[in-house]
């Protein structure tokens, strides 16, 4: 790919655009100013720290005594949790899932004998447990499903059935009362097909379904799940759109929904993506180009769902 003409034209074009005059002096001067502020701030902090340390020492003694008396009688050391585990593709209850509990360090919660504390879901996919109030979350294992570790205590967990190695699944969940939609576009040979609530499956040239919307939800509490395959030389883009924000003109902002997308491939978890504070009613979450995954994370606004890329 030499393309000498393009190379020469592009170089000429780049150099025809002037860089800001004195940008180097501006940058160096901004750096000097920042370093000077940091240095003054450090001296002030050192002085404040010295005085604060003395006062803190006295307070700690008094507080420690009071806290010990209080903690012995008042703080809850355990908490009761209950939740339901469901299949992310059809919302059916997952019976017999084994749940253990892990903390942020990955340490398993054990009982006095050293055995892992475990519970199992009943026929309705429900389970309860009493666990220490120390930041433990459920880790869910069920036959035929991809293991799942929650990042916080919730009422519902949606887990993905195992798939073929080449199959992907994106599960969208969110927390606020609004209508979010999962969108998938597949571009191949210059042609783009889109999948969403209005067009819930895409087929390839052989008539095989290569992408499907498993579940559609108009409110939080239920996931939206898309299962898809990556064909060679294709570009796949997964986006989340706020249908509520589109209809009501941003009263239910996408970035306030705590939307999260969990991406699986085969029997593995590839990633968990969380919406950031940003403007726009569309969040492009990731792209997969020729099998290479990239968390694209771009935010923009559209006037109609058909404008989503």
């Amino acid at each position: 790919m030499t393309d000498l003409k393009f190379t020469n034209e592009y170089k000429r074009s780049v150099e025809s655009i002037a860089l800001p005059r004195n940008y180097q002096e501006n940058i160096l001067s901004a750096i000097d100013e920042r370093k000077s502020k940091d240095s003054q701030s450090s001296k002030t902090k050192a002085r404040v720290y010295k005085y604060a340390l003395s006062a803190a020492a006295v307070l700690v003694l008094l507080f420690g005594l009071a806290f010990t008396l209080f903690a012995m009688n008042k703080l809850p050391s355990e908490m009761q949790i209950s939740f339901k585990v469901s299949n992310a593709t059809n919302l059916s209850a997952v019976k017999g899932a084994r749940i253990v509990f892990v903390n942020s360090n990955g340490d398993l919660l054990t009982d006095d004998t050293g055995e892992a504390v475990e519970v199992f879901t009943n026929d309705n996919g429900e389970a309860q447990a009493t666990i220490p109030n120390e930041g433990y979350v459920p880790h869910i294992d069920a036959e035929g499903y991809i293991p799942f570790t929650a990042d916080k205590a919730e009422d519902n967990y949606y887990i993905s059935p195992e798939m073929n190695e080449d199959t992907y699944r994106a599960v969208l969940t969110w927390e606020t009362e609004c209508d979010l939609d999962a969108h998938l576009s597949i571009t191949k040979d210059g042609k783009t097909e889109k999948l969403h609530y209005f067009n819930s499956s895409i087929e390839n040239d052989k008539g095989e379904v290569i992408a499907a919307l498993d579940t559609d939800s108009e409110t939080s509490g239920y996931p939206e799940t898309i299962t898809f395959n990556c064909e060679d030389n294709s570009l796949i883009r997964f986006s989340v759109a706020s249908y509520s924000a589109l209809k009501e003109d941003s009263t239910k902002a996408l970035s306030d929904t705590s939307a999260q997308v969990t991406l699986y491939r085969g029997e593995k978890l590839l990633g968990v993506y969380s919406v950031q504070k940003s403007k726009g009613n569309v969040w492009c979450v990731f792209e997969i180009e020729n099998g290479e995954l990239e968390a694209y994370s771009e935010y923009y606004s559209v006037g109609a769902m058909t404008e989503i890329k």
Partner: protein
Amino acid sequence: MSSNALRAQKALQKHGDSLMRVAFTYTNNMYDAQDMVQEALLKYIEKAPEFLSSEHEKAWLIRVIINLCKNHMTSAYKKTYAELTEDISVCDNYSSGLYEAVCSLPSKYSLVIHLFYYEGYSQKEIAKLMKITESAVSTRLQRGRSLLREKIGDDFFD
């Protein structure tokens, strides 16, 4: 001035123009590009890395700029096809439209095109800079050129 700061100043003199233009492919705005270069210099002063050569130093700085720009992009509202703002001094010359057209592409394409055609990096070197595979670089170059053709026609291509 500390020795790190002096080194950073020299690096800016040597590589500043390149860094500004790389940042510009992401930000489409010279003021934001200047901020990115400033942050990259601060990291240079803070980390004080050792370099085998000037090219190694430049590649390190470009790598830092790419990471800073990505973080900057994910935290702010951006349209995919951002237009140049009035703040930019654009030469009133037909060929400047080519740079503008490249910068209006999604950053994943504009960056590989810029690094390949302007900075002269090989696909292998670009893959290292962007932490992607060589085949991904090749695909992005092809796709980027294809998008450019749709935008501006075939005039600039052999």
